[in-house]
Structures are given as structure tokens and as C-alpha cells.
């Protein structure tokens, strides 16, 4: 059956009442989470996974995916109107979007962001529909050692692309892998790091950890201080004029391509996509000084790029079973909780599921366009809920989410302690994304490592005799070593310069 036929059947399934209901619900929640401060898409998805266990796998993943891509749409509103990005992907939008709002052009800024997001999201999804099967067929040819090497490469990329120190990111990645080893060993049935506690035999529920890390951790950071922002609620007409559309056409096209390509790379974030798109637009502009003062291109490009990125992000998940971001890792865990294993066999074993989810993303873009053009004022009302009320309610939902993972209060303790550690790590700039990713893919990574060594009879040659495995492992090694080498080079340069500076300073003192 051709891709168009499969997509058509998928679209028909989306319009079944239950699927459509959960798609709208996912988009509403995603949009609201993007608008409201204090909770990101990863924590929101983690919170809702236990609730989805009573639904069909298709309806569950449709909703979780809707939350993921809906969040990017919602984050734009606070960026433009309050200069407070709801999501990291919208940080760059605030630069010109907020300036436009101050000049009374908040409406067109939101309008062009919605149009760009729609185009980026739709093209990203079409890329997923038409490209994923090819990726999937190619992925079917790879064995356990290649799969292990691919995961190592993905972890290397995630740690290096994480903000801040790569060493800190690696430490967080290893910590995630380590927590994944807690529980009964899948091969020999021996307990590992369980300290005789039966509750630990099934491992630590990573959903509870993620809720704590992202949900509670974020709240603890927010309640430390009181932030007051100016709200520009006078948005005027949201429809951009002809000149706006002409100015934005190029940035939207370029943003779509940039976002899509970065979406395929594990570890890249939608914030990187939007910053790169902004950089490209500034460098191409005839008058770059307009940027930062309310240039519509500075809103159109980045907003398109981050939405194209988000939808392309599903390609590595659906075809390789590799999550590229923390939110996608949560969707992966949502799929697995519902009995669906992402990876090369997904298109072969669950075609109805996968095509319905892909089609739901296309319908979801239309729903979100409606939410963000004619209905944008409804979402602005949400900004009037004081954070002092909101944070208490989010706290309550973090407890419910953690409890509902296994209907066990033990996970409430896990969530609270994880939240406290998430808060501490955040204060010290230890990135959370590598931790969450390795937490999810850790058991799979170990399984494939052991499987490859079992197949080779314990010979490590399997990792350098198979060309693809070798290339991926070398790539991973280079990815990790390069920033450390760069740091060492800077350190040597600084050490050479400082004695000279010190010498110069002492001679000038004498004068």
C-alpha cells in the first residue's frame, strides 16, 4: 500500500470519536502547558502516562504526542506578550516578538508564529510519513552491536549538545544508566543494587523520577523568588498583513529545513533549531540592525524551525527506537507502557497504530492553528491565573502522577526525592536531558551490549570488525573527546597568556 493510502486510512482512524477526543485533549493540554509556567512537556507527559493506561495505545500516544507538539505553540504566547518564554524553544522568539508587542504588533507576531508553526509542523510530519518507512527498512538490517553502538552515539550527542559542561552531562548520563540497572537482572534473575528491598526488584519507576526531576524540580526553583512581569494583553488583529507575509516566506521555508534536519539528530533541541534559524535570518538580512527591535523574520523563522524539529523528532523514535529529547523519551515510555515497542519493527508489526498517530499529527496542526489564530485570546486568559495558586495544584498532580504509576506510595517518596535532586542539579547546571534519556534507553542499551557479546562468544572484536558498529563507536568517541580537547587547548592558551599579562601588568605598575 502506498504511503498516501496508509495516511488516508490513518486519517480516517483519527476521526473516530475516541481518537479525536484525545487528540483535541492533547492539543489543549499542550497549548496550556506551553502558556503556563512551572511545568514542561516532559513532566506533563510523565504525569499523564499512568492515566493513559486505561485507554487504547493509539488514543494514549495521540494524546501524549499532542501535548508534545502543542507545547511549542503555547510557549510563543508568553514569549511575545510577557517576554517570558514558556519553553526553551521560544526563548529566541521573545527577542523580536516582545519588541513587536511593545509596538502594538503582538497580534501579527502571534499570527505569523502560528502560521510558521503550522507549516513547519506539517512539513515535519509529512517528512515523517514519507521518510520513516525508508529509515525503518534500513534499520531492520542492523544487528545488536550496531544498535548498541547507535545508542552510545546518541548518548554521546545528547551529552555534548546539552548546555554547559560535557563532563557534567556525561555524569548525568551515567547516573541515568546506573539507575536503569537497579532491579532483577533480566538474564540471570539476580537482584542488583536492591538492598534486599522487594519494592526495588522491578527497578525504580522512571516515570516517578521524571515527574520529580522536571515537575517538582522546576517548581522548587520557581518558588524561591517572586517574579513580576508586565503583560501586554492588547494583541489587536492576529492576521499578518501582505508585507508581513512577504517578509516571512523565506524565513519560514528556511526554518522548516533547519528544524527538520536537526530533528533527526538525537540530542539536538528545539532551542538549538530556533537559535540556528534566528542566526541564519540575521546573517541573511540586508539590514541586520532591525533584529532585536521587532523584526517579524526573527519570529517567523525560529517558530517554524522549532515546530518542524518537534515533528521530525518522531523519526528516530519510530524507526530506531532512539529518543532524541527528554519529552520524546517520555512518549517512548508511554508507548512501551501501552505495549508498543518503538523501533524498526514498529511499521511492520503495528501499521494501524503508527499511521493513525502520524495522521493525528497532521490533524493536530490544524487544531493548533485554530487555537492560535481565532482563539488566541482564550489562551491569554490563562495567564491571569496567579502562580501562587497554580504551583500548589501542579504539586498535587505530581503526587497523583507518581502514585498512579504503580498505585504505590513508595513512588511518591521517589518523586519527592528526585524533585529535590532535580532542583539541586538545576542550581548547579547539571543538565537533566542526558539523565532522562539514559534512564529510558539504559536497559535497552545493556540488553544489546550483552546480546552482541553473547553472539560473538564474549569476543570484543564484534565492536571493531563490523564497519557500521566501528564508525558509530568512533563517532561517539570523537563527539565526547572533541569538547574535552577544546577545553584543554583553551586551558593551555590561557596558561601561556597569563604569565605574559602578569608580566605586562607588573611593568605598567612600575611606570
Amino acid at each position, binding site marked *: 500500500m502506498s504511503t498516501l493510502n496508509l495516511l488516508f486510512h490513518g486519517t480516517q482512524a483519527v476521526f473516530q470519536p475516541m481518537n479525536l477526543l484525545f487528540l483535541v485533549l492533547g492539543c489543549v493540554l499542550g497549548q496550556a502547558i506551553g502558556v503556563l509556567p512551572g511545568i514542561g512537556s516532559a513532566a506533563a507527559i510523565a504525569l499523564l502516562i499512568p492515566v493513559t493506561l*486505561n485507554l487504547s495505545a493509539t488514543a494514549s500516544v495521540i494524546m501524549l504526542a499532542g501535548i508534545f507538539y502543542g507545547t511549542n505553540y503555547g510557549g510563543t504566547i508568553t514569549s511575545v506578550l510577557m517576554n517570558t518564554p514558556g519553553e526553551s524553544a521560544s526563548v529566541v522568539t521573545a527577542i523580536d516578538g516582545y519588541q513587536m508587542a511593545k509596538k502594538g504588533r503582538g497580534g501579527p507576531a502571534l499570527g505569523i508564529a502560528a502560521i510558521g508553526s503550522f507549516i513547519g509542523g506539517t512539513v515535519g510530519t509529512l517528512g515523517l510519513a514519507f521518510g520513516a518507512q525508508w529509515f525503518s527498512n534500513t534499520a531492520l538490517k542492523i544487528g545488536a552491536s550496531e544498535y548498541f553502538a547507535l545508542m552510545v552515539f546518541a548518548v554521546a550527542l545528547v551529552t555534548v549538545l546539552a548546555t554547559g559542561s560535557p563532563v557534567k552531562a556525561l555524569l548525568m548520563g551515567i547516573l541515568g544508566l546506573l539507575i536503569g540497572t537497579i532491579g532483577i537482572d533480566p538474564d540471570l534473575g539476580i537482584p542488583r543494587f536492591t538492598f534486599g528491598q522487594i519494592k526495588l526488584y522491578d527497578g525504580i519507576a522512571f516515570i516517578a523520577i521524571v515527574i520529580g526531576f522536571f515537575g517538582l524540580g522546576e517548581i522548587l526553583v520557581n*518558588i524561591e523568588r517572586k517574579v513580576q512581569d508586565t503583560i501586554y494583553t492588547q494583541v489587536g488583529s492576529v492576521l499578518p498583513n501582505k508585507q508581513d507575509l512577504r517578509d516571512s516566506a523565506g524565513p519560514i521555508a528556511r526554518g522548516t529545513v533547519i528544524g527538520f534536519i536537526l530533528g533527526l539528530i538525537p540530542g539536538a533541541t528545539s532551542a538549538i533549531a530556533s537559535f540556528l534559524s534566528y542566526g541564519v535570518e540575521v546573517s541573511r538580512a540586508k539590514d541586520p540592525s532591525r533584529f532585536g527591535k521587532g523584526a517579524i523574520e526573527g519570529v517567523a523563522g525560529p517558530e517554524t524551525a522549532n515546530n518542524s524539529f518537534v515533528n521530525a523528532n518522531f523519526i528516530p523514535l519510530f524507526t530506531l527506537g532512539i529518543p532524541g529529547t527528554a519529552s520524546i523519551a517520555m512518549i517512548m515510555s508511554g508507548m512501551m507502557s501501552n505495549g508498543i515497542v518503538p523501533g524498526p519493527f514498529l511499521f511492520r508489526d503495528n501499521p494501524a497504530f503508527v499511521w493513525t498517530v502520524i495522521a493525528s499529527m497532521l490533524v493536530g496542526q490544524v487544531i493548533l492553528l485554530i487555537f492560535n489564530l481565532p482563539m488566541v485570546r482564550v489562551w491569554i486568559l490563562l495567564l491571569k491565573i496567579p502562580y501562587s495558586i497554580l504551583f*500548589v495544584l501542579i504539586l498535587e498532580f505530581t503526587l497523583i502522577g507518581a502514585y498512579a504509576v504503580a498505585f504505590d506510595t513508595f513512588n511518591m517518596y521517589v518523586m519527592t526525592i528526585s524533585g529535590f535532586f532535580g532542583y539541586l542539579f538545576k542550581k548547579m547546571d547539571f543538565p537533566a536531558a542526558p539523565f532522562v534519556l539514559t534512564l529510558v534507553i539504559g536497559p535497552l542499551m545493556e540488553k544489546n551490549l550483552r546480546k552482541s557479546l553473547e553472539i560473538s562468544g564474549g569476543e570484543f572484536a564484534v565492536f571493531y570488525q563490523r564497519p557500521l558498529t566501528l564508525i558509530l563507536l568512533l563517532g561517539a568517541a570523537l563527539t565526547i573527546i572533541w569538547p574535552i580537547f577544546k577545553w584543554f587547548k583553551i586551558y593551555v592558551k590561557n596558561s601561556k597568556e597569563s604569565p605574559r599579562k602578569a608580566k605586562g601588568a607588573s611593568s605598567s605598575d612600575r611606570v
Partner: protein
Amino acid sequence: MKRAENITASIFMVLGIFVIKGAMSLIYMTDIGPGPGFFPLWLGVLLLFLGLILILQNTFSKKKVAVIDSEPTEPMWPGIGGAIRVGIVIFSLLAVSFFITYIGFRVSMFLLVFSLLYTLGRQKILMTLAISLSGSFGVYFIFTHFLSVELPVASVHWLSVVGL
């Protein structure tokens, strides 16, 4: 910041040693391939090594950090007020996790929402009461009736007899 980072790196190193020790008590290799101790052992080694690298990085990049530190930045740790607020939230969540099996979801959430809204949220009493009731009894109703998620009920006699 550097001191806190060095302490964290040391904790990672101690954890690494602990993991190596734990992994060594497990089977490293079996006849068919790696055993349960193989993967954690190498993770422990990496943790130890990376913790050491972080300490070395902090020790040998003094000048660079000094320049950055001289710029006015937001303090990393909260003041006493912020620390108290963080402490209150953590303590409240741990308390709810402990008492929820005895007094049930509705009573414990009512107390949590009410106390946090009143102390940290500084809302008016009527507003606090309304949100607390909907956040406890209302949420319980939605989760159990519409989402089929069973939430804990009270195990103490005097609360369970009144249906809580």
C-alpha cells in the same frame, strides 16, 4: 559554585566506588557472555573517572572562572526565605506520602492544598477553602469516576466510617 561542584563530583566518585564494589560481588562473565556485574562495573569506573575529571577541571580553570565570577550574576543558592519555602514544600510532600495511606487522598490533599495556599500562596481564606475543596474532593471524584484511577482511601477507623 565551584565548591558545590567539587562536593557533588566527590559524591559521584564515592558512588562510583560503591557501584564498583557492588558490581564486583555480581557475576562479571558467564559462559555465554557478560553477566549482571559487567555493565554496572564499567558504569562505576566511568563515574569515578568523570568525577575526577570534573574536580581537575575546576582546579585548573581558576583564572577563567575568576573572570566569570567577577561579573554581577544572580546568586546560585536561595536566601533564608527561599530555602524555607523549598523546605516547606519538600516536607509537605513527604508528609502527604506518609499519611496518605492512613487518612486517605481527600483529607491529605485538602490539608496539603489548604496549608500551602495559605502559607506560601497567601490567598484569602475563602478562596483557599474553595480551591482546597475542589483540589481534594473534586479531583478525587474526577480521577475515580471519569479516569478510572483509584486513589487511596483512609485506613483509620474514624475516617473510613464516614466514607473517606
